[in-house]
């Protein structure tokens, strides 16, 4: 029982990320509305970010900002701070995500103007004409 408990609490974070990932992918594939596809894309991306940030967590570690002792010396114990590298990667990835989102929404407005709809099947019909 203890083992099972330990197993669950040491993996649940990855499970949540993978479940969210596939919820997002499902949204992109199945939904017919392009706005919903974009929302699916956002969820898909953030799920990956969640997965990568969870690599940086260490038990008993705190925020990766160095603490100082009373005589102004930094406390440089690597186990005391969370891993900063995934945070850096994800900062970059978040900004990339919002850039892609902006472009996708601009395209969406253009599609609405040209085709008069943002439902995928109606656009395809409109294009066949």
């Amino acid at each position: 029982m203890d083992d099972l408990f330990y197993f669950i609490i040491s993996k649940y974070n990855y499970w949540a990320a993978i479940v969210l990932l596939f919820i997002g992918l499902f949204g992109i594939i199945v939904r017919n509305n392009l706005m919903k596809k974009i929302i699916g894309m956002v969820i898909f991306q953030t799920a990956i970010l969640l997965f990568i940030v969870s690599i940086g967590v260490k038990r008993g570690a705190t925020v990766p900002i160095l603490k100082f002792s009373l005589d102004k010396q930094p406390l440089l114990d690597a186990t005391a701070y969370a891993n900063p590298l995934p945070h850096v990667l994800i900062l970059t990835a978040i900004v990339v995500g919002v850039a892609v989102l902006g472009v996708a929404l601009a395209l969406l407005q253009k599609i609405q103007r040209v085709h008069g709809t943002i439902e995928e099947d109606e656009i395809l019909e409109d294009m066949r004409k």
Partner: protein
Amino acid sequence: MTWDASLLWQFDILVLLMMVICAVTALALEGLLSSAIVTGVYSFLICLMWTHMMAVDVAFTEAAVGAAISTVIFLGTAQYISRWIKKDRPGEQGIKQLTIVIAVICAVMMLNATRDLPDWADPASPASKHLSPEYIEQAYHETATPNVVTAVLADYRSYDTMFEAVVVFAAALVVMVLLRRTSHKHRKVLHLRPKREGRDTVLRGAAQSIIPVMQIFALYVLCHGHYSPGGGFQGGVIFGASFILLALCYNLKFSMNRFREHAVLWCCAGGVLLYAGIGAACLGLGWNFLGYAALADLLGVSEKMARSHGILAVEVGVGITVMAVMVSLYYDLASGGDLEDGL
């Protein structure tokens, strides 16, 4: 096999569960506005999760970018498209169903494979053992920056960060090329935009009291990034958000009188230019690209302090670009590109 109580797994599971619910709701709702708002809620929850994972810089960025700016540009777009989705028609769904089956199989395989992953929050995992201790132990001695994330972001991996600024610059450029002042001849748009005079005293009063503080706070976040969570992105986004708030409480024209179209464009490119220019200056001084230590002689400080100053300078560059790009995206997306009025 003891579990440290400092990680509240109960709290985590609750937040993650709520995130899954939000994700499903955002995709299932029929109103597009509501799904945009629920996506914002999802972003806030992920922020909470990240704060709890000790990734404060990331959570800060997600709060400013994911929960605030993304929601605003979602709503800005929503006014030009229909508010409700139509029910999916039955019909040729064969390929979609096949894809879903494949996706579910992949999901099961990946969930199964998590058994082999290092345990969550294990201090002995490869990622915690290999590169990261060196960053934590050396960053302060080499860059005089206590916030290790800032040091890694703007110095060790500053080449990435430069291109990150280029990415947002490219996004602003693409959106501008796509939307701004293009002809509206083909427009079959549901025009739902309400007339806004901006005469509401309560809103104005609140904006007047909040916006200056926001801008000061943004500058604080930008400049204090060495010592606390924050830096160029977060500061830039907050500064940009202050102009967006101005546009929301008054109107778009009012905000554009204070931050003109040309100035926005100049700031977009200028920030990246500052960043890449510092890199090139280091190159000119005989070091490699973005080797801030080259600035030591110029500034009359030690190499360590030169790196610290270099980090500050590139953070300012990133801040300027991100601020201008957020404003530019808002101007274009909220007004449908004609910059007349919107949201």
